[in-house]
């Protein structure tokens, strides 16, 4: 497994450990805690995306808008990055690769693009990797301050769906809701399929999420919900990014078992969601829409039935 030796006296961002040596050295002294994404695309410039702006990086570690001075990502960089991401053990990340991402320490997620390998009409892996997107996870204390009272009132937790396009802070808000409820002593279970909400590493939570929270990471929502309901007697289950019909069936099953659900889904707006998935209207009581008007996590609308 390739690793980085930390530069003495310099506190580096944990995501740097998963970047190829070339970029790791260039970014050692760059403030990455405000960055949202790092983009590596084979044969193209390395890009750092901040909230409103994107920058290239020069060979002198300077952030620039001048593409001619930008450092280019090579095939070797992509291979090195991949080896770092999977800790030289690609076979351990087969399931994640099939879904196009790998979650690393701190809940940071690395999206992977390339050529899909199809087996029995399903994606079995991704080969010829062409691009990597390092999405930097953030713990924003108080991210759910403006909506927690709507979700949890009179000792009742509403079945809540957080709706937004990508990069609007869904996971951060879910994490903060989980923390707040857990600190209230409510039995919170997190079905963390991608290990982004709790960033569990060797059984320890990657964030301070209170004392009343259990996590099942890596399992599909259907499996996770069944296990959690049977074995952990939760008051509420929190999960990220609902997808197909299987997820909806799992949510319905959980709600009919008497457990509240707080989940998120990708959609532009509530109207758009209802148009495409009308069945969600009857399942959830509270719909919260997020946007980026004032940065990630901006609440657009709270609609409770």
């Amino acid at each position, binding site marked *: *497994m*390739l*690793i*980085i*030796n930390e530069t003495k006296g310099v506190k580096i961002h944990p995501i740097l450990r998963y970047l190829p*040596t070339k970029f790791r050295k260039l970014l050692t002294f760059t403030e990455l805690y405000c960055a949202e994404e790092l983009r590596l695309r084979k044969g193209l410039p390395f890009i750092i995306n901040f909230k409103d702006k994107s920058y290239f990086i020069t060979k002198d570690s300077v952030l620039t808008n001048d593409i001619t001075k930008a450092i280019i990502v090579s095939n070797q960089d992509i291979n*090195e990055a*991949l*080896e770092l991401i*999977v*800790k*030289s*053990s*690609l*076979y*351990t990340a*087969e399931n994640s690769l099939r879904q196009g991402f790998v979650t690393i320490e701190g809940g940071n997620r690395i999206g992977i693009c390339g050529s899909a390998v199809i087996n029995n009409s399903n994606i079995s*892996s991704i080969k010829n990797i062409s691009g990597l997107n390092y999405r930097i996870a953030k713990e924003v204390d108080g991210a759910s301050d403006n909506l927690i009272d709507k979700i949890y009132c009179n000792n009742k937790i509403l079945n809540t769906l957080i709706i937004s396009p990508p990069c609007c802070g869904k996971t951060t808000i879910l994490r903060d809701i989980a923390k707040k409820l857990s600190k209230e002593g409510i039995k919170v279970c997190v079905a963390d399929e991608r290990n982004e909400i709790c960033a569990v590493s060797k059984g320890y939570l990657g964030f301070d999420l209170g004392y009343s929270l259990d996590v099942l990471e890596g399992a599909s929502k259907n499996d996770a919900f069944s296990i959690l309901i049977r074995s952990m007697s939760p008051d509420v289950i929190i999960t990220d990014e609902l997808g197909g019909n299987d997820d909806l069936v799992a949510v319905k099953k959980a709600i009919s078992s008497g457990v509240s659900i707080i989940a998120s889904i990708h959609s532009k707006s509530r109207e758009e969601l209802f148009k495409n998935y009308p069945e969600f209207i009857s399942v959830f009581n509270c719909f919260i829409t997020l946007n980026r008007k004032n940065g990630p996590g901006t609440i657009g609308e709270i609609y409770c039935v």
Partner: protein
Amino acid sequence: MFKFVGAILILVSAFIWGYLSSLTPYRRYKSLLKINAGLLAMQNEIRYSSDYIDNILIKVSKIIDFDKLFLTCAESDKTLSLSERWRNSVTEDSVPLHLSKEDCEILIMLGAELGMTDREGQLKNIENTISMLKSMQINSKEEYQKLSKLKKSLGITLGLFVVIMLL
């Protein structure tokens, strides 16, 4: 008297040289046995535990009680890629393990894809290495059986020759 003691010393040294050189193919055979056992254990670990390769290498070295190759690789400079670390470990341990050039080539070939394919790929890669090392193992056993007596008697003969020449 001195001549007699000298002659005895030469004869004993020559015998020891012959004996020790006859042990080399035996040691190689033993090393290949251990490496194959380690690779089998590695296959099982990848198949059933799906742990990270570095943890597997450490576990395997404990299972087969072998502090070379697997452990050398697991404990080597982690700023290098796994294939580089594996190659370095093979090169470093080839002398104490008495491995031949062909053995090293087979092991280095394994390292080129170690860790960096899917589970099926890993299992196939290790299986191929085991079967290639097995044929090397058979060769080394034959070599050991054929050469051990020859080398021992060659040592004594050489010793006698030197003694006669000196007398």
